[in-house]
Structures are given as C-alpha cells and as structure tokens.
C-alpha cells in the first residue's frame, strides 16, 4: 500500500506543480504561440518595458505592505485581548468575516464606501483598497496569532505582573517575544493574500489603484499573452522565494 501511496503522491504533486512549471518554461519561449522555437528573454524585457505593468506592480506592493502592517498590528493586539478575555460578538464577527464569500465582502465594502462618500469628499483609491484589505485579513491574523498564544503558558506573564510590570509591559517584554514567529507567519499570510486579491480589490479600487491582479485579469480575458507567462513566473519565483526566506528566518 505504501508503494501505491508513493506513486499517487508523485501524480498529485505533478498535478499541483506541473501547470506552473510548464507556464514558467514557456515564458522563455521565443514564439508567442505554444510551439517551442528556442529560448528567449524577450517577454521579460517586454514586461520590464511596460510602464502600466510596473505601476500596477508598485501599487500592489504598496497596498500589500500597508495592509500587512495594519492588519498584523491590530490583529496581534486583538488576538492577545481575546486570549485574555472572550468577547463573544467580536469572535463571532471575525469568524464570520473569515468565512464570508469574497464577493459578498467586496460588495458590502463597496456599498459602505459609496454610502460614506455621501458625507465625505473622498474617492475610491489606494486608501479604500488598503482599508478593505486590512479588514478582510484581520481575522486571519487573529486566528494565526491566537493559535500560537494557546501554546504559551500564561503563568510567565502573571509572574511578571506580580513583580510589578504593567499589562502592556508584560505583553511587550514577556509575551510578544514568544509570539513573534506567529506574528511573522500572520504577516506573511496577510502579505500574500493582499497581494493576490482580485475580487474585493476590483470592486473598491479607484482611478489610481490598479493592482497587478487586476491587470493580469484583464490581460487574461483578452487572450493568451506570453508577457503574462513572464509575469507569472516572476511572481511564482518571487513569492516562493519570500516563503523560503521566511522559513529560514523561522528556523534560525
């Protein structure tokens, strides 16, 4: 049975990885069609020369970084608070936001922004996208950090407070250092989710906030594009590298 399992695993891993691998190989194809005509880097230079693409990539990075900082900060504090005291409605609402279909979250945020804009002179843009991303990734941070907190011994912190530390000081000096791997994992998760999001972003984006996924989507809808193969490869390698780097950090 183990041999069968091993064979199956090879097939399953091929299923998971081959599509992306093939796509990456073909990003080096000289032809714009699926016939192999030799190696070439021309789609990569076309990619680098595309100003709209570079701007979308920059937007995506800025949004993902801002959302990561915001959601990780608020989410970590929240997880710690929930560890100390159960707040049923907050837990419930976070849980709900975690499971609500993306499209529903997106249209709800859009409706909320449009409603709020009746009273404020604001437009959809980077800020609305960042707020949306912080909002939908908050629950992920809380879940990840809370699961780490559950492995900690509250006694340490109590001891610190018995010795006169304030709750903030105890959190900062005793609990937070032990939490850091969880916080880092949460931050990484937020970054990738935010960087990848299309459904919600496309609904709440404004004039100046076209992101990479939005660009990829509209390009993909217009047909096959070898430049898109190149972008995909860069993203797969880039994000993959980020994960490996993060793993290293955690092991070190």
């Amino acid at each position, binding site marked *: 049975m183990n041999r069968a399992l091993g064979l199956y695993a090879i097939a399953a891993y091929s299923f998971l990885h081959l599509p992306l691998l093939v796509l990456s190989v073909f990003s080096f194809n000289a032809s714009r*069609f699926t016939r192999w005509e030799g190696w070439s880097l021309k789609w990569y230079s076309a990619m680098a020369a595309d100003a709209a693409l570079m701007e979308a990539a*920059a937007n995506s*990075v*800025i949004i993902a*970084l*801002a959302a*990561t*900082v915001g959601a*990780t*900060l608020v989410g970590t504090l929240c997880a710690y608070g929930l560890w100390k005291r159960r707040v049923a409605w907050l837990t419930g609402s976070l849980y709900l936001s975690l499971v609500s279909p993306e499209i529903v979250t997106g249209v709800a945020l859009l409706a909320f922004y*449009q409603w709020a*804009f009746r009273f404020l*002179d*604001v*437009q*959809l*843009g980077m800020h609305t996208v960042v707020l949306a991303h912080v909002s939908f990734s908050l629950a992920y941070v809380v879940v990840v950090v809370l699961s780490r907190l559950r492995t900690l011994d509250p006694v340490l912190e109590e001891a610190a407070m018995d010795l006169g530390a304030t709750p903030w000081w105890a959190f900062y000096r005793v609990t937070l250092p032990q939490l*850091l791997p969880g*916080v*880092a994992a949460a*931050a990484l998760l937020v970054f990738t989710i935010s960087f990848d999001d299309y459904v919600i972003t496309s609904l709440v984006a*404004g*004039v*100046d906030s*076209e992101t990479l996924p939005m660009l990829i989507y*509209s390009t993909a*809808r*217009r*047909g*096959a594009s070898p430049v898109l193969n190149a972008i995909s490869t860069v993203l797969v390698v880039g994000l993959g590298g980020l994960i490996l780097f993060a793993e290293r950090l955690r092991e070190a």
Partner: protein
Amino acid sequence: MKRRAFLALGAATTACTRDPRPRLNVFNWSDYIAPEVIPNFEREFGVKVRYGVYEVTEEMVARIWSGNSGWDVVFPSNAFVEPLREAGLLAPLDHARLPGLRNLEPTFQSPQWDPALAWCVPYMWGATGIVYQRSLHPAPRAWRDLWAAPLAGRMTMLDDPAEVLGACLKKLGFSVNATSPDELSAARQEAVRQKTVLRAYLNAEVRDQLIAGDLLAAQAWRLTAQQAIDAAPERLEFIFPEEGFPIYADCACILKESKRRELAHEFLNYLLRPEVAASTAVAMKTSTCNGTARPLLPAAVRDSPIYYPPAEVLARGEWFTPVPAAAQRLRDRLWTEIKSA
C-alpha cells in the same frame, strides 16, 4: 520588524510621489486609441493623463455611478448617453471650447441621441456582424447561420446582453431595441437554443481564437473582427448579416464630477483634430466619426466596404437606443436565464 516594514512603506510612498503636472483621468474602451495619442497630448499640453480601459459600457457605468469615481472623460456607447445625462452624471459641453466639432461628419453633427451635441462628442462608430473562416462552407450570410449544427463548439457570441439579444431579435425580424415582453422572450428562446452550438460568450478574446483557427465563426464588433482579419487576411472574412445588424457610436463625454473640465475640453478637442482621429482610426482599425480625418486615411481603409459600408448595407443597420427601465429589467433577467440555461 515592524519598524523595518514602516521604513519600506515610507520609501515606497516617497518613491512614487505625485507628478506635479496637471492631471486628466480618461476612461476608454480597450484598443480604442492610437498608442502615440496620449503621449503627444501630454507633451503638447504639459499634463499627465491617467488612461484606464474597460471592455463593456456597463463596466464603466458601474464605476462612475457614484459620482465620485475620479474619472474626467469617459466614452459611453450612444445608447448610454441619455441615461447617464438623466442620472445627472454628465457635464454639459462648452462648444466655444470645441471648435473641432465642425470636423465631424454631417450625420454625427446632430445624431438622434443628442441632436445639439450638448453632452457628447461622437468618437468612433461601429457595427456588429459575423467574422468567419473562409474555409467554412457554406459561408454565413445571416445571423440565422450561427445556429447551424456544423459550428458546434467552434462559434462564439459576444458576452453582452444587448448584442446577443439584438442578434436573436434581428434573426426573428424584430428591432434590436425591442421592449415588448413577447418579442424579448422569443429572442431568449433563440439564445437558449443556440447554446448547444455555442462555445463561449467572449468579447475581445475572440480575436486570438480566430487568428489561431480555434473558431469557425463569431459574433464580433467590426473593429475586433478587422484586427483579426488583418492578422490572417487570407483566412478570415467579415459580413454584415442579412437580417440587419446593430450600429453604435462611442462618444466622448465629460463627467459632471470632473474638476478639470477645461482640460477635459482641450482633450476632446484634441481628439477631434483630423490627424489625431486618423491615427487612431488606422492604428486601431476603427471607423471614425471625423469627416476631415477620412481623406487622411490610406485608400485601402478609406474605400473599404467594411470600414465604411455603402449606403445600401448601412440601411440594414439599426442604432441602439436607450431601453426604458422596465424593459431593461426584463432584459437583465432574460440574460440571466440565458446564461444559466
């Protein structure tokens, strides 16, 4: 780690600090402007243009609906000009700032949807027809030929309710702008029946699939068809269907929310220049509404019966007009029924 993230964020934001030049935000159809037009306009007027694209008018309308989208100039199809104006989204045009308006063809100087050109400047016009592989026998002549069994799995329709219902209505001999529930539901039945041979509902993507030979025939906008044909002229052909076909004109409008109306007028007027209109018409293979641009076009384009069909063909065309709210709602529903059938 947090501090480092903050620093990176700060660096990233300062790296892309705002351009000091005045800005204009233009939202247009994809593939609808020659690549050099925007850079030339930016250079000549010392401004920065943010140029965004959409694939169907509804997509654009959904964005600007709130009245604070940030866009200045948009290009709705003629049938959407009146609803947008009714909804208070458009700014009136100042003809003193648009001397180029007299470059328009006479028919577009007072079109039926905006006779005084008080709200819009006709930009490019087009029609919907059938593009097909010449190897296909018999060659399609009419919409009804798109129901033929040999096309199964090799034929696409546009992903646009007005177009699909329009073709079905024409097939049945009705107006593309039909509002009567009977006519519309008959059209729905045709569309549902067609799904057995339909490959997919696709817009711009048909171009690649036609060139690659995946498709035998497709309902397509004239300009998409032309782009495909020019890539494979020996294989592809376009026809205006016998039963009649929709015609539309995409018009430049300035949004009421725009805080840069003067610059927006400059841009509209710039687009009306004969050489600018001609360059887009050539590069994007569109049919321009600009009469003074016509002589500047290469003869092959100027005299092409597909770019500028003769009067007897045009007589079969029917302009899309705005649909009353009740009929629109019925159409939305029928479209959902067609899609989920």
